[in-house]
Protein backbone atom coordinates (compact mmCIF):
# COMPACT_ATOMS: atom_id res chain seq x y z
CA UNK A 1 0.00 0.00 0.00
CA UNK A 2 2.80 2.40 0.95
CA UNK A 3 4.62 1.45 -2.23
CA UNK A 4 1.52 2.25 -4.32
CA UNK A 5 1.15 5.60 -2.61
CA UNK A 6 4.79 6.39 -3.31
CA UNK A 7 4.33 5.49 -6.98
CA UNK A 8 1.21 7.65 -7.24
CA UNK A 9 2.94 10.56 -5.50
CA UNK A 10 5.99 10.28 -7.72
CA UNK A 11 3.93 10.14 -10.92
CA UNK A 12 1.82 13.13 -9.85
CA UNK A 13 5.00 15.05 -9.08
CA UNK A 14 6.51 14.05 -12.40
CA UNK A 15 3.40 15.10 -14.33
CA UNK A 16 3.28 18.44 -12.55
CA UNK A 17 6.90 19.32 -13.14
CA UNK A 18 7.10 17.92 -16.66
CA UNK A 19 4.08 20.04 -17.66
CA UNK A 20 5.79 23.06 -16.15
CA UNK A 21 9.01 22.21 -17.96
CA UNK A 22 7.12 21.88 -21.27
CA UNK A 23 5.45 25.27 -20.86
CA UNK A 24 8.77 26.93 -20.06
CA UNK A 25 10.55 25.14 -22.97
CA UNK A 26 13.09 23.88 -20.51
CA UNK A 27 15.10 20.67 -20.64
CA UNK A 28 13.12 17.52 -21.28
CA UNK A 29 13.52 13.83 -22.03
CA UNK A 30 13.48 13.26 -25.76
CA UNK A 31 13.56 9.46 -25.79
CA UNK A 32 13.54 6.53 -23.38
CA UNK A 33 14.03 2.90 -24.26
CA UNK A 34 15.23 -0.29 -22.65
CA UNK A 35 17.71 -2.77 -24.07
CA UNK A 36 19.05 -6.07 -22.73
CA UNK A 37 22.85 -5.93 -22.65
CA UNK A 38 25.42 -8.19 -20.99
CA UNK A 39 22.95 -10.07 -18.83
CA UNK A 40 20.93 -7.14 -17.54
CA UNK A 41 18.40 -4.56 -18.71
CA UNK A 42 19.51 -1.00 -19.24
CA UNK A 43 17.25 2.00 -19.75
CA UNK A 44 18.70 4.65 -22.05
CA UNK A 45 17.25 8.13 -21.68
CA UNK A 46 18.04 10.83 -24.21
CA UNK A 47 17.87 14.44 -23.05
CA UNK A 48 17.32 17.65 -24.99
CA UNK A 49 19.98 19.39 -22.89
CA UNK A 50 23.22 18.24 -21.30
CA UNK A 51 23.48 17.43 -17.61
CA UNK A 52 26.41 18.51 -15.49
CA UNK A 53 26.23 15.31 -13.44
CA UNK A 54 24.05 12.24 -12.99
CA UNK A 55 20.55 12.84 -11.52
CA UNK A 56 20.35 12.46 -7.75
CA UNK A 57 17.55 9.91 -8.13
CA UNK A 58 16.67 7.62 -11.02
CA UNK A 59 13.53 5.51 -10.85
CA UNK A 60 11.76 3.15 -13.17
CA UNK A 61 8.11 2.71 -12.34
CA UNK A 62 6.15 -0.38 -13.40
CA UNK A 63 2.81 1.38 -13.88
CA UNK A 64 0.90 -1.78 -14.71
CA UNK A 65 1.79 -3.41 -11.38
CA UNK A 66 2.29 -0.20 -9.38
CA UNK A 67 5.80 -0.99 -8.22
CA UNK A 68 9.33 0.33 -8.50
CA UNK A 69 11.75 -1.64 -10.66
CA UNK A 70 15.05 -2.21 -8.86
CA UNK A 71 17.68 0.17 -10.24
CA UNK A 72 21.33 -0.62 -9.51
CA UNK A 73 22.84 2.64 -10.68
CA UNK A 74 22.49 5.70 -12.85
CA UNK A 75 25.16 7.41 -14.93
CA UNK A 76 25.37 9.97 -17.73
CA UNK A 77 27.07 9.77 -21.12
CA UNK A 78 30.33 11.63 -21.69
CA UNK A 79 28.63 14.79 -23.01
CA UNK A 80 25.71 14.52 -20.59
CA UNK A 81 23.10 14.17 -23.34
CA UNK A 82 21.95 10.77 -22.09
CA UNK A 83 21.25 8.94 -18.84
CA UNK A 84 21.98 5.23 -18.52
CA UNK A 85 19.92 3.45 -15.85
CA UNK A 86 21.18 -0.05 -15.03
CA UNK A 87 18.58 -2.42 -13.63
CA UNK A 88 19.07 -5.28 -11.19
CA UNK A 89 20.07 -8.53 -12.91
CA UNK A 90 16.92 -10.19 -11.53
CA UNK A 91 14.59 -7.64 -13.11
CA UNK A 92 12.98 -8.65 -16.38
CA UNK A 93 11.15 -6.05 -18.46
CA UNK A 94 8.13 -6.98 -20.52
CA UNK A 95 6.84 -5.23 -23.60
CA UNK A 96 3.24 -5.72 -22.41
CA UNK A 97 3.94 -3.71 -19.25
CA UNK A 98 3.88 0.08 -19.03
CA UNK A 99 7.01 1.66 -17.56
CA UNK A 100 7.84 5.26 -16.77
CA UNK A 101 11.35 6.53 -16.18
CA UNK A 102 11.53 9.28 -13.57
CA UNK A 103 14.63 11.41 -13.06
CA UNK A 104 14.86 13.70 -10.03
CA UNK A 105 17.10 16.54 -8.91
CA UNK A 106 19.11 17.34 -12.02
CA UNK A 107 21.39 20.20 -12.90
CA UNK A 108 21.53 21.09 -16.58
CA UNK A 109 24.31 23.00 -18.31
CA UNK A 110 23.57 26.65 -19.26
CA UNK A 111 21.42 27.31 -22.32
CA UNK A 112 23.69 29.91 -23.89
CA UNK A 113 26.00 31.91 -21.70
CA UNK A 114 23.68 31.84 -18.71
CA UNK A 115 23.87 29.82 -15.54
CA UNK A 116 23.23 26.16 -14.80
CA UNK A 117 19.56 25.16 -14.65
CA UNK A 118 18.25 22.95 -11.86
CA UNK A 119 15.25 20.78 -12.72
CA UNK A 120 13.37 18.80 -10.07
CA UNK A 121 11.61 16.05 -12.02
CA UNK A 122 11.43 14.72 -15.57
CA UNK A 123 9.55 11.64 -16.70
CA UNK A 124 8.95 9.67 -19.89
CA UNK A 125 7.29 6.45 -21.01
CA UNK A 126 9.86 3.72 -21.63
CA UNK A 127 9.65 1.58 -24.73
CA UNK A 128 10.39 -2.09 -24.25
CA UNK A 129 10.25 -4.27 -27.30
CA UNK A 130 8.86 -7.76 -27.63
CA UNK A 131 11.53 -10.43 -27.15
CA UNK A 132 11.59 -11.18 -30.87
CA UNK A 133 11.76 -7.52 -31.87
CA UNK A 134 14.65 -5.18 -31.15
CA UNK A 135 13.93 -2.52 -28.52
CA UNK A 136 12.82 0.60 -30.34
CA UNK A 137 14.98 3.27 -28.75
CA UNK A 138 14.33 6.24 -30.91
CA UNK A 139 13.41 9.90 -30.80
CA UNK A 140 9.70 9.21 -31.06
CA UNK A 141 7.87 7.02 -28.56
CA UNK A 142 5.31 6.06 -31.19
CA UNK A 143 7.13 6.22 -34.49
CA UNK A 144 4.88 6.47 -37.50
CA UNK A 145 5.11 3.49 -39.83
CA UNK A 146 7.46 4.29 -42.68
CA UNK A 147 5.92 3.43 -46.01
CA UNK A 148 8.11 1.28 -48.22
CA UNK A 149 8.98 3.32 -51.27
CA UNK A 150 11.19 2.65 -54.23
CA UNK A 151 11.84 6.25 -55.19
CA UNK A 152 15.32 6.72 -56.67
CA UNK A 153 17.61 8.58 -54.29
CA UNK A 154 17.92 11.55 -56.66
CA UNK A 155 14.16 12.04 -56.47
CA UNK A 156 14.12 11.52 -52.71
CA UNK A 157 12.87 15.03 -51.98
CA UNK A 158 10.02 15.25 -54.51
CA UNK A 159 7.61 13.83 -51.94
CA UNK A 160 8.55 16.59 -49.51
CA UNK A 161 7.10 19.19 -51.88
CA UNK A 162 3.57 18.04 -51.05
CA UNK A 163 4.19 17.79 -47.30
CA UNK A 164 3.85 21.19 -45.67
CA UNK A 165 4.96 19.73 -42.34
CA UNK A 166 8.31 18.92 -43.93
CA UNK A 167 9.35 22.56 -44.28
CA UNK A 168 11.77 24.31 -41.97
CA UNK A 169 13.79 27.50 -42.09
CA UNK A 170 16.77 27.64 -44.42
CA UNK A 171 19.91 29.70 -43.99
CA UNK A 172 19.82 31.63 -47.23
CA UNK A 173 19.19 31.36 -50.94
CA UNK A 174 21.94 28.82 -51.55
CA UNK A 175 20.84 26.74 -48.58
CA UNK A 176 17.13 26.80 -49.39
CA UNK A 177 15.27 24.12 -51.32
CA UNK A 178 12.46 26.58 -51.95
CA UNK A 179 13.32 30.27 -52.06
CA UNK A 180 11.26 33.31 -52.97
CA UNK A 181 12.35 36.90 -52.78
CA UNK A 182 10.25 39.73 -54.16
CA UNK A 183 9.83 43.46 -54.12
CA UNK A 184 7.23 45.90 -55.38
CA UNK A 185 7.62 49.68 -55.72
CA UNK A 186 5.12 52.35 -56.73
CA UNK A 187 5.46 56.03 -57.53
CA UNK A 188 2.61 58.50 -57.98
CA UNK A 189 1.46 58.53 -61.58
CA UNK A 190 3.49 55.47 -62.48
CA UNK A 191 2.74 51.77 -62.66
CA UNK A 192 3.76 49.28 -60.02
CA UNK A 193 7.25 47.92 -60.60
CA UNK A 194 8.37 44.65 -59.14
CA UNK A 195 10.96 41.92 -59.35
CA UNK A 196 11.09 38.34 -58.12
CA UNK A 197 13.66 35.64 -57.54
CA UNK A 198 12.53 32.04 -57.18
CA UNK A 199 14.54 28.87 -56.65
CA UNK A 200 13.45 25.23 -56.50
CA UNK A 201 16.04 22.60 -55.63
CA UNK A 202 14.97 18.97 -55.49
CA UNK A 203 18.41 17.42 -55.37
CA UNK A 204 18.52 14.30 -53.21
CA UNK A 205 21.40 12.47 -51.54
CA UNK A 206 22.70 9.27 -53.11
CA UNK A 207 25.45 7.30 -51.40
CA UNK A 208 27.68 6.10 -54.24
CA UNK A 209 31.01 4.37 -53.69
CA UNK A 210 31.35 5.61 -50.13
CA UNK A 211 30.53 9.25 -50.87
CA UNK A 212 27.27 11.12 -50.51
CA UNK A 213 26.36 12.73 -53.83
CA UNK A 214 23.74 15.45 -54.29
CA UNK A 215 21.83 14.63 -57.47
CA UNK A 216 18.60 16.07 -58.79
CA UNK A 217 16.73 18.72 -60.75
CA UNK A 218 16.68 22.41 -59.96
CA UNK A 219 15.03 25.54 -61.29
CA UNK A 220 15.97 29.22 -61.04
CA UNK A 221 13.57 31.92 -62.14
CA UNK A 222 14.35 35.63 -61.98
CA UNK A 223 12.39 38.45 -63.52
CA UNK A 224 9.99 41.33 -63.20
CA UNK A 225 9.07 44.55 -64.96
CA UNK A 226 11.63 46.82 -63.34
CA UNK A 227 13.66 48.39 -66.20
CA UNK A 228 16.64 48.70 -63.86
CA UNK A 229 16.24 45.20 -62.45
CA UNK A 230 18.02 41.99 -63.27
CA UNK A 231 17.31 40.62 -66.73
CA UNK A 232 14.65 37.94 -66.82
CA UNK A 233 16.23 34.52 -66.76
CA UNK A 234 15.14 30.93 -66.39
CA UNK A 235 17.64 28.19 -65.60
CA UNK A 236 16.47 24.61 -65.56
CA UNK A 237 19.12 22.07 -64.86
CA UNK A 238 20.36 18.98 -63.13
CA UNK A 239 22.73 19.19 -60.19
CA UNK A 240 25.42 16.61 -59.44
CA UNK A 241 27.67 17.53 -56.54
CA UNK A 242 30.04 15.56 -54.32
CA UNK A 243 33.23 16.05 -52.28
CA UNK A 244 36.48 15.02 -53.96
CA UNK A 245 38.81 15.86 -51.09
CA UNK A 246 37.79 15.89 -47.49
CA UNK A 247 39.18 17.33 -44.35
CA UNK A 248 42.57 18.61 -43.41
CA UNK A 249 43.51 21.30 -40.95
CA UNK A 250 42.20 24.09 -43.22
CA UNK A 251 39.71 22.54 -45.57
CA UNK A 252 36.55 20.72 -44.72
CA UNK A 253 36.27 19.56 -48.33
CA UNK A 254 36.60 20.49 -51.97
CA UNK A 255 33.24 19.95 -53.63
CA UNK A 256 32.89 19.23 -57.33
CA UNK A 257 29.64 20.53 -58.81
CA UNK A 258 28.48 19.57 -62.28
CA UNK A 259 25.42 21.35 -63.57
CA UNK A 260 24.09 20.76 -67.10
CA UNK A 261 21.32 23.28 -67.63
CA UNK A 262 19.14 25.19 -70.01
CA UNK A 263 20.00 28.87 -69.59
CA UNK A 264 17.42 31.12 -71.19
CA UNK A 265 15.55 34.35 -71.10
CA UNK A 266 12.17 33.91 -69.51
CA UNK A 267 10.30 34.07 -72.80
CA UNK A 268 12.65 31.44 -74.29
CA UNK A 269 13.64 33.77 -77.13
CA UNK A 270 17.29 33.16 -76.23
CA UNK A 271 18.26 29.63 -75.15
CA UNK A 272 21.68 28.25 -74.31
CA UNK A 273 22.64 24.76 -73.23
CA UNK A 274 25.40 25.06 -70.66
CA UNK A 275 27.46 22.43 -68.89
CA UNK A 276 28.96 24.00 -65.80
CA UNK A 277 31.69 22.50 -63.64
CA UNK A 278 32.87 24.11 -60.39
CA UNK A 279 35.47 23.19 -57.80
CA UNK A 280 34.46 24.84 -54.53
CA UNK A 281 36.74 24.93 -51.52
CA UNK A 282 34.84 24.55 -48.26
CA UNK A 283 37.15 26.05 -45.68
CA UNK A 284 36.63 25.23 -42.04
CA UNK A 285 34.55 27.95 -40.39
CA UNK A 286 36.08 30.61 -38.19
CA UNK A 287 34.16 30.89 -34.95
CA UNK A 288 34.72 33.48 -32.22
CA UNK A 289 35.23 32.41 -28.62
CA UNK A 290 31.57 32.79 -27.67
CA UNK A 291 30.37 31.58 -31.11
CA UNK A 292 28.48 34.86 -31.64
CA UNK A 293 30.56 35.79 -34.69
CA UNK A 294 31.22 33.24 -37.41
CA UNK A 295 32.66 33.44 -40.90
CA UNK A 296 32.89 31.16 -43.92
CA UNK A 297 35.08 31.33 -47.00
CA UNK A 298 34.27 29.52 -50.27
CA UNK A 299 36.62 30.07 -53.25
CA UNK A 300 35.39 28.71 -56.59
CA UNK A 301 37.14 27.80 -59.85
CA UNK A 302 35.10 26.54 -62.76
CA UNK A 303 34.21 26.48 -66.42
CA UNK A 304 31.09 26.70 -68.53
CA UNK A 305 30.84 25.21 -72.00
CA UNK A 306 27.82 24.91 -74.22
CA UNK A 307 25.99 25.99 -77.32
CA UNK A 308 23.29 28.44 -78.21
CA UNK A 309 20.14 26.54 -79.15
CA UNK A 310 18.10 29.49 -80.26
CA UNK A 311 19.11 33.10 -80.66
CA UNK A 312 16.78 36.01 -81.00
CA UNK A 313 19.16 37.48 -83.56
CA UNK A 314 21.13 35.63 -86.27
CA UNK A 315 24.48 36.67 -84.80
CA UNK A 316 23.78 34.60 -81.71
CA UNK A 317 22.24 31.56 -83.37
CA UNK A 318 24.13 28.28 -82.81
CA UNK A 319 27.22 29.93 -81.40
CA UNK A 320 29.46 27.83 -79.19
CA UNK A 321 30.04 28.99 -75.63
CA UNK A 322 33.12 28.49 -73.47
CA UNK A 323 33.91 30.45 -70.33
CA UNK A 324 36.37 30.10 -67.48
CA UNK A 325 35.25 31.33 -64.10
CA UNK A 326 36.85 32.15 -60.77
CA UNK A 327 35.05 33.52 -57.80
CA UNK A 328 34.63 33.53 -54.09
CA UNK A 329 31.98 33.83 -51.45
CA UNK A 330 32.48 35.13 -47.94
CA UNK A 331 29.92 35.05 -45.14
CA UNK A 332 30.06 36.91 -41.84
CA UNK A 333 27.35 36.14 -39.33
CA UNK A 334 26.58 38.02 -36.12
CA UNK A 335 24.30 35.83 -34.02
CA UNK A 336 22.35 38.41 -32.04
CA UNK A 337 19.75 35.88 -30.85
CA UNK A 338 17.31 38.29 -29.24
CA UNK A 339 13.54 37.85 -29.67
CA UNK A 340 13.15 40.47 -32.41
CA UNK A 341 16.38 39.74 -34.27
CA UNK A 342 17.92 36.34 -34.82
CA UNK A 343 21.05 37.34 -36.69
CA UNK A 344 22.68 39.77 -39.08
CA UNK A 345 24.42 38.24 -42.06
CA UNK A 346 26.84 39.83 -44.50
CA UNK A 347 27.52 37.92 -47.69
CA UNK A 348 29.95 38.94 -50.40
CA UNK A 349 30.21 37.01 -53.62
CA UNK A 350 32.42 37.77 -56.59
CA UNK A 351 32.82 36.05 -59.94
CA UNK A 352 34.90 36.83 -62.98
CA UNK A 353 34.11 35.09 -66.25
CA UNK A 354 36.47 34.95 -69.21
CA UNK A 355 34.65 34.09 -72.44
CA UNK A 356 37.06 31.96 -74.52
CA UNK A 357 34.91 32.34 -77.64
CA UNK A 358 33.46 35.68 -78.77
CA UNK A 359 30.07 36.08 -77.20
CA UNK A 360 27.21 38.12 -78.59
CA UNK A 361 24.14 39.36 -76.79
CA UNK A 362 21.44 41.81 -77.79
CA UNK A 363 19.50 44.84 -76.67
CA UNK A 364 15.94 45.84 -77.39
CA UNK A 365 15.84 48.85 -79.69
CA UNK A 366 13.67 51.87 -78.98
CA UNK A 367 11.86 51.40 -82.26
CA UNK A 368 11.38 47.67 -81.70
CA UNK A 369 13.53 44.81 -82.85
CA UNK A 370 16.85 43.77 -81.40
CA UNK A 371 20.37 44.92 -82.05
CA UNK A 372 23.42 42.72 -81.42
CA UNK A 373 25.99 43.67 -78.79
CA UNK A 374 29.37 42.05 -79.33
CA UNK A 375 30.81 41.10 -75.97
CA UNK A 376 33.93 39.52 -77.43
CA UNK A 377 36.24 37.81 -74.96
CA UNK A 378 36.44 40.69 -72.51
CA UNK A 379 36.33 39.38 -68.93
CA UNK A 380 33.07 40.08 -67.14
CA UNK A 381 32.89 40.73 -63.41
CA UNK A 382 29.97 40.39 -61.09
CA UNK A 383 29.93 41.28 -57.42
CA UNK A 384 27.10 41.13 -54.96
CA UNK A 385 27.07 42.31 -51.37
CA UNK A 386 24.11 41.39 -49.22
CA UNK A 387 23.20 42.35 -45.69
CA UNK A 388 20.33 40.33 -44.27
CA UNK A 389 18.44 40.97 -41.06
CA UNK A 390 16.68 37.79 -40.02
CA UNK A 391 13.89 38.68 -37.60
CA UNK A 392 12.85 35.04 -37.28
CA UNK A 393 14.29 31.85 -38.71
CA UNK A 394 11.91 32.06 -41.67
CA UNK A 395 11.28 35.78 -42.30
CA UNK A 396 13.72 38.59 -42.78
CA UNK A 397 14.70 41.58 -44.86
CA UNK A 398 17.76 42.14 -46.95
CA UNK A 399 19.66 44.92 -48.64
CA UNK A 400 21.79 43.98 -51.61
CA UNK A 401 24.24 45.80 -53.85
CA UNK A 402 25.12 44.42 -57.26
CA UNK A 403 27.62 45.48 -59.87
CA UNK A 404 28.61 43.80 -63.10
CA UNK A 405 27.05 41.40 -65.55
CA UNK A 406 26.19 37.75 -65.80
CA UNK A 407 25.38 35.53 -68.76
CA UNK A 408 23.42 34.89 -70.89
CA UNK A 409 22.47 38.53 -71.57
CA UNK A 410 25.41 40.24 -69.83
CA UNK A 411 23.08 43.15 -69.05
CA UNK A 412 25.21 45.51 -67.03
CA UNK A 413 24.02 46.23 -63.50
CA UNK A 414 25.53 49.52 -62.44
CA UNK A 415 25.45 49.74 -58.64
CA UNK A 416 22.00 48.28 -58.25
CA UNK A 417 20.52 48.35 -54.76
CA UNK A 418 17.76 45.97 -53.75
CA UNK A 419 15.63 46.05 -50.63
CA UNK A 420 13.57 42.94 -50.15
CA UNK A 421 11.58 40.60 -47.98
CA UNK A 422 12.85 37.05 -47.74
CA UNK A 423 11.00 33.84 -46.96
CA UNK A 424 13.33 30.87 -46.61
CA UNK A 425 12.11 27.29 -46.35
CA UNK A 426 13.89 23.99 -46.33
CA UNK A 427 12.64 20.40 -46.37
CA UNK A 428 12.70 19.17 -42.81
CA UNK A 429 10.62 16.01 -42.71
CA UNK A 430 11.36 13.30 -40.19
Amino acid at each position, binding site marked *: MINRLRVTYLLTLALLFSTHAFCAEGPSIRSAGARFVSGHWQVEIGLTDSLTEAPANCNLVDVTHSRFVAVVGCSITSLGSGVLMRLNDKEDLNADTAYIAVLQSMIFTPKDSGVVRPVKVLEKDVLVAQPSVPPAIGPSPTPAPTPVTHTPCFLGRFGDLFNVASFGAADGRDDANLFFSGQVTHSRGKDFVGTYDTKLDFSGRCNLNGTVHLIGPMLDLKGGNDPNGSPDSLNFGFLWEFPILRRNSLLSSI*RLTQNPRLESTQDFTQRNFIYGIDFRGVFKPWVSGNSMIRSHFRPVVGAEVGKNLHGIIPAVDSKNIARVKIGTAFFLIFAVAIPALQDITFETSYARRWPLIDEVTFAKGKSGGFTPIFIGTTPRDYVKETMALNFTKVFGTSVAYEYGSVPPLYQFLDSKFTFGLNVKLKFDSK
Partner: protein
Amino acid sequence: MASDPSVLLPMPISTAEKICDACVRAVGTVKDTIRAQDPLSKFGIEDKDAIEDLVNTIVNDEKIGVPSEGYNISDPNKLHLKNSTTFAQLEDTVIASSQAGKVSSGKSSAEKQP
Protein backbone atom coordinates in the same frame (compact mmCIF):
# COMPACT_ATOMS: atom_id res chain seq x y z
CA MET B 1 17.33 -11.73 -40.67
CA ALA B 2 20.65 -11.95 -38.89
CA SER B 3 21.15 -14.90 -36.56
CA ASP B 4 22.71 -12.82 -33.78
CA PRO B 5 19.94 -10.74 -32.17
CA SER B 6 22.45 -8.17 -30.91
CA VAL B 7 23.03 -6.91 -34.45
CA LEU B 8 19.37 -5.88 -34.58
CA LEU B 9 19.70 -3.51 -31.66
CA PRO B 10 19.36 0.18 -32.50
CA MET B 11 22.35 2.38 -31.90
CA PRO B 12 22.90 3.17 -28.19
CA ILE B 13 22.74 6.83 -27.16
CA SER B 14 26.35 6.76 -25.98
CA THR B 15 27.48 5.51 -29.40
CA ALA B 16 25.44 8.15 -31.23
CA GLU B 17 26.90 10.80 -28.93
CA LYS B 18 30.45 9.64 -29.65
CA ILE B 19 29.90 9.60 -33.44
CA CYS B 20 28.16 12.99 -33.52
CA ASP B 21 30.80 14.56 -31.29
CA ALA B 22 33.66 13.38 -33.52
CA CYS B 23 31.92 14.31 -36.77
CA VAL B 24 30.89 17.80 -35.61
CA ARG B 25 34.45 18.44 -34.43
CA ALA B 26 35.81 17.21 -37.77
CA VAL B 27 33.61 19.42 -39.93
CA GLY B 28 33.02 22.45 -37.71
CA THR B 29 35.01 24.52 -35.27
CA VAL B 30 34.37 23.63 -31.64
CA LYS B 31 35.73 26.07 -29.07
CA ASP B 32 34.35 24.41 -25.98
CA THR B 33 32.60 21.28 -24.78
CA ILE B 34 29.66 20.32 -26.97
CA ARG B 35 26.30 20.39 -25.18
CA ALA B 36 23.13 18.62 -26.25
CA GLN B 37 21.25 21.94 -26.59
CA ASP B 38 23.84 23.57 -28.88
CA PRO B 39 22.70 24.19 -32.46
CA LEU B 40 24.99 23.18 -35.33
CA SER B 41 25.38 26.87 -36.24
CA LYS B 42 27.34 27.39 -33.03
CA PHE B 43 30.09 25.23 -34.52
CA GLY B 44 29.98 27.00 -37.90
CA ILE B 45 27.97 24.21 -39.53
CA GLU B 46 25.31 26.44 -41.01
CA ASP B 47 25.36 26.43 -44.77
CA LYS B 48 24.58 23.74 -47.31
CA ASP B 49 28.23 22.87 -47.94
CA ALA B 50 29.07 22.33 -44.27
CA ILE B 51 25.89 20.34 -43.64
CA GLU B 52 26.56 18.09 -46.64
CA ASP B 53 30.13 17.55 -45.38
CA LEU B 54 28.73 16.59 -41.98
CA VAL B 55 26.26 14.15 -43.55
CA ASN B 56 29.02 12.61 -45.65
CA THR B 57 31.28 12.22 -42.63
CA ILE B 58 28.56 10.64 -40.49
CA VAL B 59 27.47 8.25 -43.23
CA ASN B 60 30.81 7.22 -44.71
CA ASP B 61 33.80 7.96 -42.51
CA GLU B 62 35.13 4.61 -41.34
CA LYS B 63 37.17 6.18 -38.53
CA ILE B 64 34.58 8.42 -36.90
CA GLY B 65 31.27 7.96 -38.74
CA VAL B 66 28.61 5.30 -38.21
CA PRO B 67 30.71 2.62 -40.01
CA SER B 68 33.31 2.98 -37.23
CA GLU B 69 30.80 1.48 -34.76
CA GLY B 70 29.47 -1.23 -37.06
CA TYR B 71 26.39 0.63 -38.28
CA ASN B 72 25.31 2.03 -41.62
CA ILE B 73 22.87 4.62 -42.92
CA SER B 74 21.33 3.30 -46.12
CA ASP B 75 19.43 6.47 -47.01
CA PRO B 76 21.33 9.73 -46.32
CA ASN B 77 18.13 11.65 -47.22
CA LYS B 78 16.83 10.69 -43.78
CA LEU B 79 19.40 13.00 -42.19
CA HIS B 80 17.31 16.18 -42.21
CA LEU B 81 19.77 18.69 -40.82
CA LYS B 82 19.80 22.46 -40.76
CA ASN B 83 21.74 25.15 -38.96
CA SER B 84 19.30 25.23 -36.03
CA THR B 85 19.38 21.45 -35.49
CA THR B 86 20.63 20.85 -31.97
CA PHE B 87 23.27 18.29 -31.07
CA ALA B 88 20.58 16.24 -29.30
CA GLN B 89 18.42 16.27 -32.44
CA LEU B 90 21.45 15.23 -34.47
CA GLU B 91 21.88 12.24 -32.16
CA ASP B 92 18.20 11.35 -32.56
CA THR B 93 18.45 11.62 -36.34
CA VAL B 94 21.53 9.39 -36.46
CA ILE B 95 19.88 6.79 -34.17
CA ALA B 96 16.67 6.81 -36.21
CA SER B 97 18.50 6.58 -39.55
CA SER B 98 21.10 3.93 -38.78
CA GLN B 99 20.94 0.17 -38.85
CA ALA B 100 23.41 -2.30 -37.42
CA GLY B 101 25.79 -3.88 -39.90
CA LYS B 102 28.40 -2.55 -42.25
CA VAL B 103 27.39 -2.17 -45.85
CA SER B 104 29.23 1.02 -46.66
CA SER B 105 32.48 0.89 -48.58
CA GLY B 106 33.36 4.34 -47.36
CA LYS B 107 36.88 5.39 -46.58
CA SER B 108 38.19 7.60 -43.87
CA SER B 109 38.26 11.17 -45.01
CA ALA B 110 41.87 11.36 -43.97
CA GLU B 111 42.69 8.57 -46.42
CA LYS B 112 40.63 9.82 -49.31
CA GLN B 113 42.49 11.86 -51.89
CA PRO B 114 41.30 13.33 -55.17
